[in-house]
Structures are given as structure tokens and as C-alpha cells.
């Protein structure tokens, strides 16, 4: 071996530089990840600490008292449940079935592409625009008045495009080879959809729908314009407090009201309301994940 040839397998300058780059890259990514997660934890922690004095089951089941400065949030909580469930009960079936049609039956022509573009753009329309649309269409034109029905329909219109888009994505992710297997034994489109397409995309579809729960629960503008009120007196703990044609309270709106409109609210109450809103959404999302895992693990469908 000549004296000036480097020993085998030792670091060269180039390798050292690559290692340095590697370290820098790793830390940059780590810091970004931390920058994302830490504020989140801080916010949740801060909320919990501030809310602690009011966080009891009683708070959830009670009605607000003394001009909403004390008491619980039951009417708002029930109102939100009503709005979310009714709106998704309307938008989920329509959205899913429409997406199945668009993805499985409709030919890939300009009309289909225009619809696709429209759906994507509708999904990005600000909620205040949906609010105005709901006001014009449901409250006035359809004469549903300011009511749970109008508000739910407005929320349904708002969530529909996103459900269509996410369902299409879930359907499109079913491998073509599964469909081919069906076509080549003479299955009709509907048989193909029922036997392989839906079973293999249902978890994606449901996830898409359930993610809309948080949107429907969180938006304030659409319901404020169409059916939510500041205050409504109902029985404490009554689950069937509202009728379709009545107005209702809702958590998001209630939070806005007690933090900005009502003087002298007990300090922990707005925080506790936020925690309940956040907690319910997280609970629903967790349920979605659990459902998904369960569906994935099932061997037979």
C-alpha cells in the first residue's frame, strides 16, 4: 500500500460535511415539529387550568342562571348536538351517494370535471357566505324562519362539498385491480360498488364525515344568521328540549356571547365552555379513529 492512499473506510471531508448537513436537517425538522406541538399543548393546558373551577358534571347539565353569568351550559350543549346531528344526517347521505355517482358512474367528461372543480371551490367558500345563503334560502325563501331546521340545512350545505370531496378520495383509493376482478366475472357496477368498493373505502368515507362534526360544531356565523339565539330557557338535563322549528342555543355561539356580550360572567365559565366544545369534538374524533381501526381489523365484510 502506498503511504499517501487513505486507510480503508475512514471518513473523508465530504462524508463529514454530509454528516453535518444531516444533523442540521434533523434539528430543523425537530424544531418545526416542536413549534407545532408546544403551542397546542400550552393552549389546552391553559384552558384546562382556567376552566378547572367550573369543570363539573353539574356545569354540563345545568342551565345558565343570573343573566348567564353563572350556572351551566346544557341548552347550548344540546343545541349543538341537534345542529350537528341533523346537519350531518342531511349532508352525509347526499354527499356520499353523490360522490359514488360521480366517481363510479359518471363518465370522465367536461361536465364531470366542472362539477369536480365546483365542489372543490365550494369547499373553500367562507362560512359567512354560507350563512348569508342560508338566511336567504332557508329562513326567507323556504319560510323555515329562524329555526334549528334552517341552521342545520345551512350547516349541511357548508359541509356537503367537503364530504363529497373526501368520499371521492376514499373511493378513488380503492385499487383498480379489485374492480377489475369484479368486472371480469360479470359484476354490474352496483355489484362492484357494494361488494368491493364500499367495503374497502368505508373507513375513509366515515372519517371524512366525522371530521365534519368539528366543523359543524365549531362554526358560529352560519347558525347565528339562521337559527341560534343568545338565550333560550329549557329544562335542566332535558335532551328533547328543542323542536325543529324552534331556535336553539349552541356552544360556539354561547362562547362568543358570554365572552364578549355579557358583563360580569364568572371567569372560569367561558374557559369551561371552550373545554366542553373541544372535549366533545375530540371525543367524536377519537370515536372515528376507533371505528376505523375496528373496520380495518375486520376480516370479513
Amino acid at each position, binding site marked *: 500500500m502506498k503511504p499517501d492512499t487513505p486507510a480503508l473506510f475512514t471518513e473523508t471531508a465530504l462524508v463529514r460535511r454530509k454528516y453535518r448537513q444531516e444533523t442540521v436537517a434533523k434539528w430543523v425538522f425537530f424544531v418545526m415539529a416542536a413549534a407545532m406541538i408546544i403551542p397546542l399543548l400550552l393552549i389546552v393546558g391553559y384552558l384546562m387550568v382556567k376552566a378547572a373551577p367550573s369543570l363539573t358534571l353539574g356545569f354540563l347539565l345545568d342551565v345558565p342562571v343570573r343573566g348567564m353569568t353563572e350556572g351551566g351550559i346544557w341548552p347550548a350543549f344540546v343545541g349543538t348536538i341537534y345542529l350537528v346531528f341533523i346537519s350531518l344526517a342531511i349532508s352525509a347521505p347526499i354527499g356520499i351517494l353523490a360522490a359514488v355517482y360521480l366517481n363510479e358512474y359518471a363518465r370522465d367528461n367536461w361536465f364531470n370535471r366542472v362539477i369536480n372543480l365546483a365542489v372543490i371551490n365550494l369547499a373553500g367558500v367562507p362560512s359567512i357566505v354560507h350563512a348569508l345563503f342560508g338566511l336567504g334560502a332557508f329562513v326567507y325563501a323556504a319560510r323555515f324562519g329562524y329555526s334549528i331546521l334552517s341552521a342545520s340545512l345551512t350547516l349541511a350545505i357548508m359541509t356537503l362539498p367537503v364530504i363529497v370531496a373526501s368520499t371521492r378520495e376514499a373511493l378513488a383509493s380503492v385499487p383498480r*385491480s*379489485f374492480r*377489475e376482478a*369484479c368486472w*371480469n*366475472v360479470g*359484476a354490474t357496477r352496483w355489484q362492484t360498488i357494494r*361488494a368491493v368498493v364500499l367495503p374497502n373505502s368505508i373507513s375513509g368515507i366515515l372519517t371524512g364525515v366525522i371530521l365534519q362534526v368539528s366543523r359543524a360544531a365549531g362554526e358560529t356565523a352560519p347558525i347565528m344568521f339562521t337559527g341560534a339565539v343568545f338565550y333560550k330557557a329549557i329544562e335542566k338535563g332535558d335532551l328533547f328540549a328543542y323542536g325543529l322549528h324552534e331556535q336553539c342555543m349552541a356552544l360556539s355561539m354561547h362562547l362568543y356571547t358570554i365572552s364578549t356580550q355579557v358583563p360580569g360572567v364568572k371567569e372560569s365559565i367561558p374557559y369551561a365552555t371552550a373545554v366542553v366544545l373541544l372535549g366533545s369534538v375530540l371525543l367524536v374524533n377519537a370515536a372515528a379513529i376507533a371505528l376505523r381501526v375496528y373496520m380495518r381489523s375486520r*376480516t370479513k365484510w
Partner: protein
Amino acid sequence: MSDPVPYAITTQDLNLWYARFQALIRVTTRIKHGLITSLIGPSGCGKTTLLRCFNRVNERYGYVTTTGEIKLHGKNIYDPDVSLVELRKSVGMVFQRPNPLPISVYENVVFGMRIHHARAQLSRARLDEAVEKALTEVGLWNDLKDRLGMKATGLLLEQQQKLCIARLLPLKPEIILMDEPCSALDVEGTRAIEELMFAMKGRYTIVIVTHNMAQARRASDECIFMLMGELIEHNRTEELFLNPHNPKTAEYIEGRYG
């Protein structure tokens, strides 16, 4: 043409366009009943397309226009009284990548029956019998008879491919189309599939696309060479390989060997 023709598939001046691109150009061929016919040619020459014509499944892949005539056992499959469901039932297809459905082995085999029969017609006994028969025929029964409930996607690739063939059998197909059925398999798997093809020969008409000259030579009775959407030569396999009439055929075969 009144005497019983030994031809399972005949095409006359078959043209096919994907949108504006012509993928098949005046293909005229006669494929004999009960034999194994291989389809060779360079990538993109239209082998898969031609295969998909025989059960009209091309129509499910985008914009396709077809002219000309395709007859299966003398029956024009573009006749208005032809039901696509029945056509595809009797012309089965096997793919390059085994594509068992993500369900149990058992359900995979009876899948076709479930598609074509009302639920009440399918007794458990009838299904069990069909499964045993089909799996025995492809040589999987002994390996899998205790594992019929396992997910088909967990099988070995070779077993998956055999299962995909078995899946066609309960429908009593006349013709089985195979699109490079061995290209995802190793030597052992390839041999197993070829043996299966030999065993099935006679009862079924088999058309197989392959990029493997040796396989075409070993496994087929007749051979069709295609180039750029045109059928160049169709002959008995030994004849086509030993004594190609068309210089293009000779070039392709030799190029592949060289």
C-alpha cells in the same frame, strides 16, 4: 360455416381506438377451441387491448371505439341481444398481478356465484362443493382446505394467482384470458401455472399474453405475433418460432434471444 367450427374466437377487421389513438388495426384472427394460444409482441403493441376485447371489458376503461366483428363460438358479441354480464361470466380473465379480493379464500372462490345467483339459490352445500371442486382443479385444495377462512391476500403469490384462476371456474367459463399471468411469479410459480394450463387445456380455450419467448414456446399450441396494433403472424407455435414467415417476426424472436 354451418358445420361446427373449431374456432372459439374469431375477429374480422377489428379496429379499436382509445379516444383518437388507434390501438388495434384491422386485426383478423381465428383462435381454435380447446387450445392454448399465446400472444406475443413488444410492449404497447396492443396485446392487453386485444385480450380485453374478447369480453368487452375495454368499455370500462375510458373512451373506447370499436369497429369490426368479434365472434365467440360463432356468436357476434356486439349483437344487441348479448348480455355483458353473461359474456363476462363465460370469458374469464387473469391478470399480471394476482388480484384476489381482500376477503377469505372461500369467499373469493364463490364470489362469482354470489354475483350471478340470488342468495336463496346458493345453499351452503352447493357453495362448499363448488369451492372444493375449483380448488382441486387448480391444485390448491390440499394446501388450503384447512385454511379456507384466511384472507386471500395473505397467500403466496403463486397461490394467489391459482386462486384467481379458481375464482373463474365455478362460473363454467368457455374461454380463459391470461394477461402475463406469470410475470409476478418465480420459476417455480411459473411452472406451476403452466402445468395448470396444460391440465385445463381441452376443456377451456386459453389465450395467454406473455413477454417470455421461452414460455410461449413451451406452453402454447399456437402463437400470435403482434406489432404496433397489427397482427403480423399467427401460426402453430413450433412453426412460428422455427420458421417465421414474416421478417418482422423473425427479428423480434431473435432479438429476444440475442
